[in-house]
């Protein structure tokens, strides 16, 4: 009887192979690594946000158990600074320690390594430090002023000066004409908050230098093997083939672990000096202060409309707060703005951006990468325009969005949208929530609000001219398969979905496939896991490698069985003649031939069964006018929230929340659903409570889980209404699109719009918290205003209330970008 092996795993909710080790507590995260002779390092961190300092570590050196003390001064000239990823220019503004000036609270000043953690902490207290405080600047719009305290006087930036370390510019179409011909202009200043990844597994590493081999091994809770290896090796002036980065089980990252950190360099130096493994894991307070945070933005947005609701132009001046130092700061503005403009193919776009340093937590990559920030502004302005024009917010979107049947299309901004179902997502979401009914029958203090967002599936970053990942597959001599991946799984289920792909292509049993632990000494080169790139980019590399391997396996089988390769099929751990599924050769036999019986191989066939493939997405670099297609394909969705506000306490309850997404061809629906729910959680936190709150001196008041309002299970509504309307990508061979960040982008605006509908209070700043809601309601009542903006219409607001008070971009119209 012929068995049909066509029942493929891709598309099925296969339970994850990762789970067993995680559920039973046998998985090893960074703090679980124990090595013989391991010693413990602790970092002395600045308690001031901006200050000169003088250090005396002499007492610390003599404390019991202390094996080493490091400061910045002694490393100058020996350890190379590494850089913020600027366009084509790595500005060396990162170093293991501050040298004589600190720019943010928590910045590294010195470090101690000792036999035990307590000895290291005691020694830190024996370091004498004298601070000479400098004035602090915490707000981005203050940091651009000419008299603002200057953080980094010694750096020359290509496109910036002072605290402005980069500028952004987009000039598409003719904005003046759009303005002149507009029937309606809506303008509003919006600001968004800093947010932490707050992955539960704290950042940390164990560095182990083996002086015999000259090999430095760094175990690190990181999202990228090779970015860390290359930058670390460069910084320490070690050969890259003598630095090995190994990722243990990584307990999440969300972008906060996607760069080299000072503590990795510090631990490595201590290990180089002592020859012993050095453990350096950060405390939760340290992770909040230096673990990189979402970049906050102030956006001064103007949108131009025709009477019928057509969006004809977008003008914006964004000031981004990237903290005391940043690694991804400018890229957040470039990518977030470009991709965040979707799903609207706006013909006239004029954007300026000043990207600044302030004496606050360093800015980094975080789930959404600039899209939530622009979505917060743009999607609320869509509602505001709808209101002025007397249109339904759904209608004003429906007539402006890119539609599935128009694809493939190229927008004026340059995005090449291969496929989308965003129009269908909008319709479905409206149906599920009961949009028209809820709009028509509005109850007091209840409202509905929507937001549309599209997002990248990985990106060609303006600074990297690359977007690649790689997979190597080896068919072992017993018919099992090992996958070597260039990237680092940290909760996304790589071992499972990659195995689904390999199983389908090679016909090997799913349970026989193992993903090797991430190790730069045997992984193929690739960029790492971030930007929702695993399924599409790594997945494509995996498919390519599997197809190459399949070709080799089939060639051997064809030779041995004396049939045409075209007559053969793979399935059930076998290669068999089509139609005769219970015959043929087992993969393990074929693998055995390829190494142990090489006379059985076809003439000219290179022995062993291994195949490598690297996939680099067909994407563009940013053009001088800001346009470009940075992403290989675009996912997206429609979110609609139904909220109720308690007028006695300001507490907002989400009664219902609908998410309809286009994630293309979904490899594992259950995993993708988990990604959307987790993405939503990050958006919910950004919308309703997470924030970096500083006192006037730049001390972070929210550096503990007690104060930092990460959502708990009781804060999240039931998420039953999740739907997929797949528009399979035509650029990614398997059709998949990135899932990780679709759930985050639209959340703040959906909730903002719902709150505005419910109460008439339009929030222009984040987060929306009960206290702000309640005070806004009270003030709205007192003021008698129909529409009340928070905080702009509050009596104590000291920012620009109207367009006439908006600051002007600091960059001139000159030729610098061209």
């Amino acid at each position, binding site marked *: 009887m012929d068995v049909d092996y066509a029942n493929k795993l891709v598309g099925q909710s296969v339970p994850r192979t990762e*789970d067993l080790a995680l559920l039973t*507590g046998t998985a090893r995260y960074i703090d679980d690594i124990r090595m013989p002779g391991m010693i413990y390092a602790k970092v002395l961190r600045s308690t001031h946000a901006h200050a000169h300092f003088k250090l005396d570590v002499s007492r610390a050196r003599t404390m019991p158990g202390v094996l080493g003390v490091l400061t910045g001064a002694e490393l100058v000239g020996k350890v190379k600074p590494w850089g913020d990823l600027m366009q084509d220019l790595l500005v060396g503004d990162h170093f293991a320690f501050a040298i004589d000036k600190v720019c943010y609270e928590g910045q590294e000043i010195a470090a101690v390594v000792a036999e035990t953690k307590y000895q290291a902490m005691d020694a830190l207290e024996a370091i004498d430090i004298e601070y000479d405080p400098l004035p602090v600047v915490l707000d981005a719009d203050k940091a651009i002023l000419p008299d603002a305290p200057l953080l980094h006087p010694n750096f020359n930036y290509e496109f910036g000066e002072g605290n402005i370390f980069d500028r952004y510019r987009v000039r598409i179409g003719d904005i003046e004409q759009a303005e002149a011909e507009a029937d309606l202009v809506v303008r509003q200043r919006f600001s968004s908050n800093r947010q932490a990844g707050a992955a539960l597994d704290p950042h940390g590493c164990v560095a182990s230098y083996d002086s015999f081999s000259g090999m430095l091994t760094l175990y690190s809770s990181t999202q990228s093997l090779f970015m860390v290896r290359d930058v670390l090796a460069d910084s320490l002036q070690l050969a890259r083939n003598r630095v090995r980065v190994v990722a243990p089980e990584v*307990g999440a990252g969300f972008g906060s672990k996607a760069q080299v950190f000072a503590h990795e360099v510090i631990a490595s130096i201590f290990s180089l000096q002592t020859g012993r493994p050095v453990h350096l894991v950060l405390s939760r307070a340290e992770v909040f202060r230096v673990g990189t945070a979402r970049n906050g933005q102030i956006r001064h947005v103007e949108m131009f409309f025709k009477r019928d609701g057509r969006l004809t132009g977008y003008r914006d001046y964004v000031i981004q707060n990237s903290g005391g130092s940043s690694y991804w700061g400018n890229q957040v503005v470039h990518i977030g703005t470009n991709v965040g403009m979707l799903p609207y193919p706006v013909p006239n776009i004029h954007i300026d951006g000043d990207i600044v340093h302030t004496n606050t937590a360093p800015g980094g990559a975080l789930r959404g990468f600039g899209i939530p920030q622009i979505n917060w502004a743009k999607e609320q302005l869509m509602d505001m325009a709808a209101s002025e024009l007397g249109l339904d917010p759904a209608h004003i979107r429906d007539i402006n969005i890119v539609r599935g049947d128009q694809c493939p299309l190229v927008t004026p901004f340059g995005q090449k949208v291969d496929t989308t179902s965003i129009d269908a997502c909008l319709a479905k979401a409206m149906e599920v929530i009961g949009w028209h009914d809820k709009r028509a029958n509005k109850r007091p203090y209840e409202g509905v609000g929507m937001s549309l967002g599209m997002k990248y599936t990985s990106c060609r970053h303006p600074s990297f001219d690359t977007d690649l990942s790689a997979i190597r597959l080896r068919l072992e001599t017993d018919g099992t398969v090992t996958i070597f991946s260039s990237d680092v799984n940290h909760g996304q289920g790589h071992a499972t979905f990659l195995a689904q792909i390999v199983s389908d292509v090679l016909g090997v049993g799913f349970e*026989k496939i193992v993903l090797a632990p991430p190790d730069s000494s045997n992984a193929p080169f690739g960029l790492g896991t971030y930007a929702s790139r695993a399924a599409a980019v790594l997945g494509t590399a995996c498919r390519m490698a599997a197809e190459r391997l399949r070709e080799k396996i089939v060639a051997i089988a064809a030779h041995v069985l004396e049939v045409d390769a075209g007559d053969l099929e793979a399935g059930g751990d076998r290669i068999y003649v089509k139609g005769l599924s219970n015959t043929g050769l087992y993969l393990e036999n074929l693998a055995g031939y390829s190494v142990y019986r090489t006379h059985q191989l076809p003439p000219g066939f290179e022995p062993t069964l291994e195949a490598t493939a690297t996939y680099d997405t067909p994407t563009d670099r940013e053009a001088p006018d800001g346009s470009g297609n940075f992403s290989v394909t675009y996912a997206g969705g429609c979110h609609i929230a139904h909220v109720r506000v308690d007028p006695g306490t300001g507490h907002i309850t989400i009664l219902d929340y609908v998410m309809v997404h286009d994630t293309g061809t979904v490899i594992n629906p259950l995993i993708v659903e988990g990604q959307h729910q987790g993405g939503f*959680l990050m958006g919910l936190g950004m919308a309703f409570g997470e924030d970096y709150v500083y006192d006037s001196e730049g001390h972070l008041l929210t550096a503990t889980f007690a104060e930092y309002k990460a959502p*708990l299970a009781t804060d999240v509504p039931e998420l039953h209404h999740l739907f997929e309307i797949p528009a399979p990508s035509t650029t990614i061979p398997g059709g998949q699109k990135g899932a990780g960040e679709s759930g985050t982008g639209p959340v703040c605006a959906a909730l903002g719009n719902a709150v505005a509908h419910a109460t008439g209070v339009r929030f222009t700043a984040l987060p929306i918290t009960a206290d702000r809601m309640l005070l806004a309601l009270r003030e709205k009542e007192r003021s008698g205003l129909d529409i009340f903006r928070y905080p702009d219409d509050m009596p104590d607001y000291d920012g620009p209330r109207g367009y006439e008070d908006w600051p002007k971009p600091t960059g001139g119209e000159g030729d610098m970008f061209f």
Partner: protein
Amino acid sequence: MQTITIHVNGKTVRGTIDERMLLIEFIRDVAHLTGTHAGCWEARCGACAVELDGKTVKSCNVLAMQADGGSVFTVESLSQQRLKPVEHVTTQSLAGVYTPLEAIGSSAADLHPLQKAFHTCHALQCGFCTPGMLMVLKGFLAENPSPTREEVRMAIAGNICRCTGYQHIVDAAMMAAETLRAAGP
């Protein structure tokens, strides 16, 4: 320094420890069980939750001394600790003649219903919060075998997860509750 004895997962563990040692440190560094995780050290995130003398506690906020003579159960107690997965590595027809050597511990079939439900419902992504979630839910379901979803959410409100959004965790708890009710007392 004092010498204490704690019964960890049914095994007597003795250690001469610094008075400052926290229960989580005793579990991880003296009993050598790393499944209990430290996410914050401030008794907030709940990744360190274990069972002490029949109650769920946050082991980062309990001194090992406080547990002297007591009985602790960690995530490793929910199923026998696996060191190596047991699988048949060959599909050849002769394979049926041979039984692979049993790895230390048992197979996936012996997982606690909560672990099975977490696996089925995809209630874990990075896995770091998972041991704490499992131990809190185990204690909760023992007290409240027929909870509502809201009650489950209240029960795990002392455990932070950043990956899942909690939805699948609540699904898994409800599924496990049903399994445990059906299995009887």
